[in-house]
């Protein structure tokens, strides 16, 4: 059974639903897929997975979310888990925020909405190899 996870964070449930389906379609049972609607919820999921001894490989996060912006969240993640690959999936390319994420969260890639499955797949495959 898989002990590696991909976590998606976005405040829109429909984005989470389609994202998860795409990932499942691309990578099947190779990974565990979890979603969270906010940074706070993401932290809960991270803790739960840690408890289950499932290692998070990648976090794909939206940028504009209530309470905490994506770049801030990814920076916090990076501080605690430097090995997690951080990816941003956003409809709004705030260059400053992306640059901040690059520096503070070692942002691996930024995917722009609307994205294609291939884009997503390529980013994740290259990130994990």
């Amino acid at each position, binding site marked *: 059974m898989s002990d590696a996870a991909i976590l998606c964070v976005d405040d*829109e*449930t*429909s984005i989470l*639903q389609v994202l998860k389906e795409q990932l499942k*379609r691309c990578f099947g049972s190779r990974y565990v897929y979890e979603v969270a609607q906010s940074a706070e919820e993401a932290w809960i999921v991270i803790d739960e997975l840690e408890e289950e001894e499932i290692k998070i490989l990648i976090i794909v996060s939206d940028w504009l979310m*209530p309470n905490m912006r994506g770049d801030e969240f990814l920076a916090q993640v990076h501080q605690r888990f430097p090995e997690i690959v951080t990816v941003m999936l956003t*409809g*709004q390319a705030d260059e400053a925020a992306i640059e901040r994420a690059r520096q503070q969260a070692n942002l691996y890639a930024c995917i722009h909405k609307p994205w294609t499955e291939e884009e997503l797949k390529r980013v994740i495959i290259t990130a994990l190899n």
Partner: protein
Amino acid sequence: MLNLLNSPLNTPLAPAQLKPKWSAWFILMATITVAIASATAIHQLNQIAEYSDDSRLLLTQIKERASRLKALEWEGIFKGKIDQDLTRELAENQQNTDAILSKLRQLNQQHELDKFFVLYARHKSEVDISLKLIAQGKAKEAIDHHSIDATYDQLYAEASALENIYTEKKGQTRQFSDLGTTFSLMLSAAIISILFYQFSQKLLFKNQELETAFEELQRAQSQLIQQEKMAALGQVIAGVAHEINNPLGAIKASASNTHKALQEALVDLPSLHQRLNSEEQESFFKLIAQALHNPPAAASQESRALKRKMTAQLQAHEVEDARYVADLLMDMGINEEFEFLLPLFKSDQCEWAIQFAYNLTCSFVNNQTILRAVDRSAKIVFALKSYARFDQSGKKQVVKVADGLETVLEIYRNQLKRNIYLVRDYQEIPNILGYPDELIQVWTNLIHNAIQAMESGGTLTLALHQQGQGIVVNITDTGLGIPIEIQQKIFDAFFTTKSAGEGSGLGLHICQKILDKHQGHMKVESEPGHTQFSVWLPIECV
């Protein structure tokens, strides 16, 4: 933005303005000339009148002197001699008479008195002769000689005639001068009316000029309102783009997911009967029926706990990739009740069958997602459209205030999303008559200000209710508040406490203008942590 304001004020002064100026000067000069001329004429006439009066008085005096002289002569005749008293009185009389005569001579410029002087001289010589005879004691001869009465009468008659002439002349000149005065009064009245007319013409002209300038200003103002709205739109457009990219992303991914799912399902379909026995097939179709019926489980702590429980059960049935299968089942809306799946769990085709069922049914979920995303996009587009609309008909329309508020909320949705909690407290209110686009501008400014005041988060409350013949919109924020000392100033144009890029200080000023136009009003109440802008708008008969 401001160069717009200049254009109407820069209109060059019309040349027509110069013409009345020149003619006014001309009229003024002419008037002064006429006034001086008539004053001189009146003065001259008055002088003539005075001189006539003087002459008349002198003539009367001469008449008195002449009759006195006659009386003295008679005295002499009676006395028969010219004694000392008489001599003195005669000398005195002569002196007075000479003085009067010399005055009369001075006035006799037109020689109208010539005849009088001749008559006087004749009379005087007669009197002198008579007085000489009396002095010689020949009083009797003096009486005989007496032709004094005749010369006296002639003199007296001439003097009276002259007196009459002078009286008449004085009357005439007085009449003339009165006429002149009347004429000049009338003339001045005419001049004043002309000047006044020209002045009011000028005023009228200026008024028209002002009116056009005012109209231009009003047009500029409404353009300014539109520009400010567009500037605000420019600020939010990036956010709106983000908003539209979300549903677009969902639509694109859903469509591609459905496509892939169907491709896989079509490949799997022929092998269904070979892979699953009838009991397993029954379980499979029940799964499909349930999946079509149930919505997918939303991600939550409970659903994750449930997933772990399901995973454990699947592991107990030695299902490979138990967690992955549990996840698929959760996404198909299967939760606690999964006893009916036991035949599948036991099958070695378990993972294949559940993936197949998932592929067959996920298009329904994806379609739901697409429909929702399309609705969402349509809503954003509608908001943008009603936001950017600029009605120039200038006619009032039926306005649903709540719709306007929702449009603005849609536009500011992603700004609100950051850290602002939104509370709506809408009560049923009637539609009102007004200018929907301009009211949207009011809500935009107030909501934008509230968001800007809550930089580090807070609660935005929008409340709607009816009050008397109007409706009230309360926009309340929990931001930093407005210091009491600037509360009076915030409605002034260009008053802002924000940095140059952030605020122009026109927002509230424009709100006020728009509310004035609606005969509505607005008040503010603020303390740190609580700021409420309260807008009242009349309903008017719809």
